[in-house]
């Protein structure tokens, strides 16, 4: 240690370790909230004691073995949920794209921006099941209701992500279009869309992945698909059928994630799989 201490020249004073009041207060607040939640929640934590044995028991009931005779039913239920997710996503895209242009500052007047942003925020606050319950009386108890609920939900998120992407586009290309005397439409088409498109495509895919998962819930209120099969079988404690459903849902969802990942790479980087060298 001595070697480093022999200072040949006058060193400036060492700074004191800074402390941030705001930071400490923030940490204290967060810790208090967490402690309060644990302390006040009505949970019998002792129930966790036999959780492992119970879990093993139910995994056994579900998966050892699953009810293979229910494979067909599980598969068509899952596919129906995927179809709901697809229609919901497509409708969501069609509606949200023009709206998110209108919600972007600089592309439309403020009086148009603000209410649209509020609408997006309100939609995002309401879970899709609740939306489904709301529109149920208009559309009836069909998978189409589920798809519409997902579409409305998608408008909330896609609308927000869209205007954020459009506003985040570099000023350079925008100014270039403006300086050539281009209209707002030209600005959107040539100044904004080319830079934002990869992000927007990837939001669409991401929202589709979310919708695939969210569509399961909608079955609980009668829209069909995964949720319906789940409810029917949990009610009668057909755990081996639930196990079959679980396997099919996992397989189909993972397959869709892989596919959507490949499409995302194709759209953003120009190839389906990221080659080793680029990693």
């Amino acid at each position, binding site marked *: 240690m001595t070697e480093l201490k022999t200072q040949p020249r006058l060193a400036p004073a060492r700074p004191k370790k800074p402390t941030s009041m705001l930071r400490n207060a923030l940490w204290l607040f967060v810790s208090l909230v*967490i402690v309060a939640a644990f302390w006040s*929640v009505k*949970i019998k934590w002792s129930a966790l004691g036999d959780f492992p044995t119970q879990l093993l028991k139910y995994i056994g009931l579900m998966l050892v073995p699953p009810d293979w005779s229910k494979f067909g039913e599980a598969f068509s239920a899952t596919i129906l949920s*995927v179809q709901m997710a697809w229609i919901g996503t*497509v409708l969501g895209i069609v509606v949200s794209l023009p709206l998110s242009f209108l919600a972007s500052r600089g592309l439309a007047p403020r009086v148009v921006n603000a209410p649209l942003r509020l609408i997006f925020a309100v939609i995002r606050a309401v879970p899709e099941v609740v939306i489904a319950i709301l529109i149920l009386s208009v559309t*009836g108890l069909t998978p189409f209701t589920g798809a519409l609920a997902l579409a409305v939900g998608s408008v909330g998120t896609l609308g927000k992500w869209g205007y954020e992407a459009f506003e985040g586009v570099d000023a350079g290309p925008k100014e270039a279009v403006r300086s050539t005397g281009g209209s707002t439409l030209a600005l959107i088409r040539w100044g904004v869309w080319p830079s934002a498109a990869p992000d927007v495509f990837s939001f669409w895919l991401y929202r589709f992945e979310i919708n695939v998962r969210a569509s399961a*819930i909608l079955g609980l209120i009668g829209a069909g698909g995964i949720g319906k099969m789940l409810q029917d079988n949990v009610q009668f404690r057909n755990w081996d059928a639930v196990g079959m459903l679980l396997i099919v*849902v*996992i397989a189909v969802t993972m397959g869709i994630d892989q596919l959507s990942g490949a499409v995302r790479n194709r759209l953003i980087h120009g190839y389906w799989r990221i080659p080793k060298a680029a990693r």
Partner: protein
Amino acid sequence: MSAGTAGKTGIQVSPAHPGRPVKPRHGAQVGAAVVVLAAITVWAGIGVQINIAAIWENWSNASGNIIQLLQPDYGFFPKVIPALVETLQMAVIATAVGSALSLPLAFLASRATNPRPGLLRATRLVMNIVRAVPDILYAAILVAVVGVGALSGVMALILFNVGIIVKLVSEALDGEDPGALEAALAAGASWPKANRAAMLPQILPSFASQVLYTFELNIRASTVIGLVGAGGLGILIDNVRSFFRYHELSMIILSILALVLVLESVSSALRRKLV
């Protein structure tokens, strides 16, 4: 550029103007993509039984419900409060536990921070499976395993959170410049120590922002998983819905809306501070 060199680099040369390249055509590819997308949409549309006519027919009876919805029953609010509080408690606990579990898992799931290919692939596979199960399925199964109530809901939310946070944070790690990590390894640090000292500070802001984002998702998700008995607002929603008490439903929705909007503005303010 001469025609010869252009040919070598694979650029098509316009015959009328030998100096100019021909506009590359993706027409066939785009056309094929449009056909495929349209076909999937038609197939899915048939599957979900799109029926515009029904909307017309039901419109009159629906308008009554909508009028009810626009008149929330404020007197119902005291009954909403306990469920609202439970939803909030579940979301806080699940976010705290879920993010604590996610951080080490994210380091195991990133190519940049896990030098062992076998462990890396195993972690990623498990995480893909965890993420593939919808939260409602977790909730339904856990209600059977640990019983009706907030505990099953909290556990379902934790699994849901781990799936999301690990994916987003491990992607952030993948994209991080590994320079500092290399320097720490070159100074004789083991991988876990090097990850802690060199990589953790780099991704902390994005981790914190993911945690806040999942907290927002949890508020919404915890209202939903109650539908299968996993605590929170969902149970209440299920009750009033089955008896078509739309004034009360409207009050519940209004409370969710207020809660989510308040929390979202707090958390986005926090996120802006962090990044």
